[in-house]
């Protein structure tokens, strides 16, 4: 039966593009948040931590629902974007936003742990040598924290690639636009198209293994990746 309908391969590209874009956003935002948070202390920071980690704890559907409220026609951000002539909900950017928000806590946590591990004396030495705080971060803290940051990036990518609940709430299932592999699987099962569901599952497993294996190899193989890890 399914042999009659031709296979639509777009979910593969949508998933990859979404995860990649979300990981880049998460990397920048997670690093910035971790660097910002590392210099601060106090009871108010517990609240900030809680807020940053919320997407990890909440069910993705709840995260998606909040995002929907935020970006919807009557939401504060949605209204603002509407004035600029853009709608986010049910568009490709929505899949990116959903994936970035749910993967953010993983990046934030690992980046913070990695930055905290960096010996303060290196940063202080850089300061006495005339480096600005940006240079201290960019040229000393970040390279030394790099193995941890890399691990956080891999985790974030993996989480973004598997994202389903929040994406469905915010981006829906628009074939060729917002239908990622997990969403394609869900709707294949719902349509009782088991063969298609199984095919997508196998594709998902294959891509995940290839990506993670490749990343692992890159991080541990001899060559630039390895040198970067060992220089610590």
């Amino acid at each position, binding site marked *: 039966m399914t042999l009659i309908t031709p296979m639509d391969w777009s979910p593969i590209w949508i998933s990859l593009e979404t995860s990649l874009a979300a990981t880049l956003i998460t990397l920048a935002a997670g690093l910035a948040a971790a660097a910002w948070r590392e210099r601060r202390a106090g009871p108010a920071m517990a609240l900030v931590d809680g807020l940053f980690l919320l997407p990890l704890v909440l069910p993705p559907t709840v995260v998606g629902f909040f995002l929907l409220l935020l970006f919807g026609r009557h939401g504060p951000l949605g209204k603002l974007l509407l004035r600029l002539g853009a709608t986010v909900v049910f568009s490709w950017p929505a899949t990116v936003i959903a994936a970035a928000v749910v993967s953010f806590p993983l990046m934030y946590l690992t980046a913070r742990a990695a930055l905290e591990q960096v*010996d303060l*004396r*290196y940063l*202080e*030495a*850089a*300061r*006495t*040598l*005339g*480096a*600005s705080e940006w*240079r201290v971060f960019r*040229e*000393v803290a970040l*390279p*030394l924290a790099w193995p941890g940051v890399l691990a956080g990036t891999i985790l974030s990518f993996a989480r973004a690639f598997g994202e389903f609940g929040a994406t469905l709430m915010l981006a829906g299932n628009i074939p060729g636009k917002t239908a990622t592999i997990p969403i394609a699987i869900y709707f294949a099962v719902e349509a009782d198209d088991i063969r298609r569901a199984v095919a997508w599952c196998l594709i998902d497993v294959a891509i995940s293994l290839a990506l993670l294996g490749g990343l692992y190899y890159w991080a541990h193989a001899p060559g630039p990746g390895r040198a970067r890890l060992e*220089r*610590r």
Partner: protein
Amino acid sequence: MALEIQIAKKLPDFTLDVSFATGDDPLAILGPSGSGKTMLLRCVAGLERPDRGRIALHDRTLTDTERRIHIPARHRRVGLLFQHYALFPHRTVAENIAFGLRHLAGEERAHRLALLMERMHLTGLERRYPRELSGGEQQRVALARALSIEPEALLLDEPLSALDTHLRSRVEAQLQETFAGYRRPALLVTHNIEEAYRLGRELLVLSRGRVAAFGPKEEIFRRPPTVEVARLTGCKNFSRARMISENLAEAVDWGCQLRVAQALPRPAVQVGIRAHHIDFVESSPGAAPEDNVFPCWLVRSSETPFRITLYLHLHRPPGASSEAHLQAEVFKEKWQRFRERPLPWHVRLSPESLFLLPE
């Protein structure tokens, strides 16, 4: 003066509260671990803020809590050599040193880098990573890096403590060479008495955050102002003392009267003598009391490769639980000459070597 420091900062166990000024000669800061030495350097470097006080370098105010001035570390041009060097592990030797040369144009930067490498005898090691260097090389890289910013003051935190003994004297010579060509204020923190003496021109003794002594090193070693300073500068023998007449003191703990070269009017004093100043003399029954010669018995001894420390009991043989009165240090060659002689031996506590100290 070139570098003026007057700061107070509360630390967990005591308050660092120091005030001194130094010129363009290296100043050694001697103190036991946890006396506030490192914190003092960190305040000068701008890595810590004192609670109150002022730091000025060549008429440039670096810190002034009253006027709310705190120049950040990166604008101070104060070179800091960290105790374990803190070389950037992810950068090569050349990249480490060039880190402080960023503001220069390409050609000038390369020139200055080459100059520093040559001056610190590092040429050829440009592409090595810190973990591939010996301790002495690491120290030279750290020194070159600290000098790269042409600092107006140089701070060294235990520069030799991370090195093996056989490397120390060589690295120390290198440091002396650097100081000779530097001619700007340099603070050198150490807990090693000999290092402090050899590398510093002047000496500051720090104890629990306070300046216990400050001045020319020869003066402090010859006449420590207090018992504490005497102890911190390596004096091992002390006895409570009482002045009997102008130059006769009674050493209570040593049970004898001593002729002394200096008089001290205070009633409560201590008398002290350094372990290597104790003289061993032929027994002479006719010696006059003012010679400060006393019979002594050996309680125990402890050897180092070239010297021996003898723990001595004065006046009569030690009982089962007697403690030694004095601790004398002599070269082994000298000890060979009298070790076979029957006890008691005789020690002379020369009046010139004795110092009288206020409590």
